[in-house]
């Protein structure tokens, strides 16, 4: 395959990248910052990212006094010589140079390493050629879709060929999807989640904050898109907080979730301090209540009349006005439609069993989609799930029986900064999961439009980051926390279009790459929901009834 030559390396360093003199006639406008390119050295082929473009002139007089009135001929000739362009490319991976016509190198090797691709350890000499990447280069580095767990996530910005995520690696560590509002975070998450469900690499617990994942939503083009429940039927179970909306046609729910006051822990309440308007002293008082009443601390607090309250304050030494204020604030919680004075843990246990059984769970909030509802329920459910997975892992370590091996679990969390901001990340369940639950096979997929609001220790733990356009410098810095080659990647991020273009960096891809995620549409749905194994007829019938309410 012939690769189009773009220029030759004339300068550079290992740290700053290679400076390439573009060939005469090669317009800078045909090249896009962040794109994937190849430099052919003598011994090695280098896979690079275009990180900068620069305009130069050979004679300062051309800058001081730009000549006027060029014919096209003169400007064509000048633009390849006295006025010229430099590209800066950053080598990310390399491999021993092989005959590019030899397609067989693709057929061997599951991993980039097995295909001969390795991290860069050197740079090419002067006059190595910079060439356009071809299909074979993409496939060599990013793998082809027929490799196990390779899921076609999208395509390069300027080419029509598949870019895969290694979903196994994606699930191994926590990950993040970032980007300004409207860049396509939720749609990208839907694509990734559908891939994980389809390839069966683990189970998902999804907190559907904005009612998008279970039953789909209306896109900005005013099209209704399908939800994961529609695509995967009984493989996905939806638990809804909203009794009134659940089980309308096309919205089958597998359970209605109620929360008992007895299930709410001090941690849940403190997480919502801002939403509930709690004072700084609330934590101490909640601690006292918990010490005194155990599991019933919240029920007792809410039931207290004036007399009981002052009695409690006398005994415990708490400040009466503060306790009154706390009681007032927490009564807001108790008035929620889905809150009951007391609940057993049957439904929560069912959720855990469902996950252990290999089915995916979506928590649907319906009309209860205020930040308070979302935070309370997500934290409460996750705390239990996390405990269950810890226990399972301990069991597995004891028996080492395959049947006891915990399934990889990924928890999808929108508005992640609410749970993982620096003030609280060290105390919340989600913070713990992000930092240390990898060994218990639990990871997070955090979705957020303000990554700078997330604790940097959490950010540095993220294995794979998928980011759409970000404008704020602090957000860009946050997304690239703990990543090498930041300056090249920063430019690559800044050059993305506003919608449906992302930079993927990290564990699930061999090197950073700009991708246009797949469009979440009929064609995509048809592909992912195509059953891999035949499904029994009555199962199908039942699913149809559930889905279409017939």
């Amino acid at each position, binding site marked *: 395959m012939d690769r189009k030559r773009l220029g030759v390396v004339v300068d550079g360093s290992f740290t700053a990248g290679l400076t390439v003199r573009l060939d005469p006639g090669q317009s800078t406008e045909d090249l896009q910052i962040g794109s994937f390119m190849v430099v052919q050295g003598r011994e090695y082929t280098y896979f690079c990212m275009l990180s900068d473009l620069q305009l130069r002139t050979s004679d300062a007089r051309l800058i001081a006094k730009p000549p006027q009135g060029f014919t096209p001929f003169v400007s064509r*000739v*000048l633009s390849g010589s006295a006025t010229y362009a430099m590209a800066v490319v950053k080598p990310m991976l390399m491999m021993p140079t092989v005959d590019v016509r030899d397609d067989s190198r693709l057929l061997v090797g599951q991993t980039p390493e097995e295909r001969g691709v390795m991290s860069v350890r050197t740079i090419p000499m002067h006059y190595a050629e910079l060439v356009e990447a071809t299909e074979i280069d993409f496939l060599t580095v990013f793998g082809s879709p027929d490799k196990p767990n390779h899921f076609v996530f999208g395509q390069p910005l300027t080419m029509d060929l598949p870019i895969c995520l290694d979903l196994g690696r994606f699930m191994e560590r926590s990950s993040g999807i970032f980007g300004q509002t409207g860049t396509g975070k939720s749609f990208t998450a839907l694509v990734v989640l559908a891939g994980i469900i389809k390839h069966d690499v683990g189970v998902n617990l999804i907190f559907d904050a904005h009612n998008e994942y279970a039953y789909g939503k209306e896109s900005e083009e005013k099209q209704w898109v399908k939800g994961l429940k529609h695509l995967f039927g009984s493989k996905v179970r939806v638990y809804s907080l909203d009794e009134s909306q659940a089980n309308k046609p096309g919205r089958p729910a597998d359970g209605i979730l109620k929360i008992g006051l007895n299930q709410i822990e001090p941690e849940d309440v403190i997480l919502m301090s801002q939403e509930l308007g709690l004072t700084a002293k609330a934590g101490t008082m909640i601690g006292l209540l918990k010490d005194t009443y155990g599991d019933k601390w919240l029920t007792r607090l809410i039931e207290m009349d004036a007399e009981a309250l002052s009695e409690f304050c006398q005994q415990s030494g708490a400040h009466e006005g503060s306790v009154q204020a706390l009681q007032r604030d927490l009564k807001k919680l108790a008035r929620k439609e889905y809150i009951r004075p007391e609940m057993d843990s049957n439904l929560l246990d069912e959720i855990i069993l469902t996950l252990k059984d290999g089915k995916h769970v979506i928590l649907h909030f319906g009309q209860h989609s205020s930040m308070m509802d979302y935070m309370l329920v997500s934290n409460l459910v996750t705390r239990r799930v996390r405990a269950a997975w810890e226990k399972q892992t301990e069991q597995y370590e004891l028996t080492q029986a395959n049947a006891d091996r915990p399934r990889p679990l990924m928890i999808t969390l929108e508005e992640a900064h609410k749970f993982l901001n620096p003030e609280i990340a060290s105390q919340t369940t989600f913070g713990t999961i992000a930092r240390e639950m990898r060994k218990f096979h639990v990871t997070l997929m955090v979705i957020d439009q303000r990554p700078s609001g997330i604790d940097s220790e959490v950010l540095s733990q993220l294995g794979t980051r998928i980011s759409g356009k970000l404008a704020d410098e602090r957000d860009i810095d946050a997304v690239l926390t703990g990543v090498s080659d930041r300056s090249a990647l920063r430019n690559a991020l800044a050059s993305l279009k506003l919608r449906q273009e992302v930079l993927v960096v990290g564990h699930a891809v061999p090197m950073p790459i700009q991708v246009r995620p797949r469009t979440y549409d009929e064609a995509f749905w048809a592909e992912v929901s195509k059953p891999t194994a035949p499904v029994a007829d009555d199962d199908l019938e039942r699913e149809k009834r559930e889905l279409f309410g017939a």
Partner: protein
Amino acid sequence: MTERIGEIIETDSFTFVAESFALNRPPALGSLVKAQAGGDTWVYGVVAFGETVSVDPGRGAMRRSRPDAYDEAVYTRHPELEHLLHTKFTVIPVGSRVGERMSQRIPPQPPPMHYSVYACAPDEVREFSERRLYLRTLATAQLPAPVEHVLAAHLTWTYEQRGRDEAWLEQAALEVAGLLQQDVERLLAVLYAVDPEA
């Protein structure tokens, strides 16, 4: 075989001067010519200068015209001018040929005194100019005229000889641009002069 156009009257390693057989009509500035160098060896060069002067350096030319006889009529009335004046042109060697082998290296010896200079046929021009390494030799030579004029003349002449070959002209202009990129004024002078679109 092409036309004999002159005879070498001064010669050294980097320049030779020939007397033109046609008075007042030296070969075009910038044109490619070749000199016989003995046996099947030829020297190619680019015409960098032309002049018509008195044969006797001690006696300059003087006015001959009259109100009723000027220009061509001067020569009709004074046939002896053919012997008093001569036309010379300076050639910069840029390549050579031995038998069929053409090269863009300058020859090891200067072409011999009193040997002939020939014009080059279009096919030969095309063949010689296919590679353009010789442009560097020309641009860096000690020229009797400003380099931008010689280069511009050569590019335009060759472009015509090659049947208005625009692709060639653009490549050659790019090469010249590379050679003159430190001196934009000269470069622009060449480009404006050769621009086929102007």
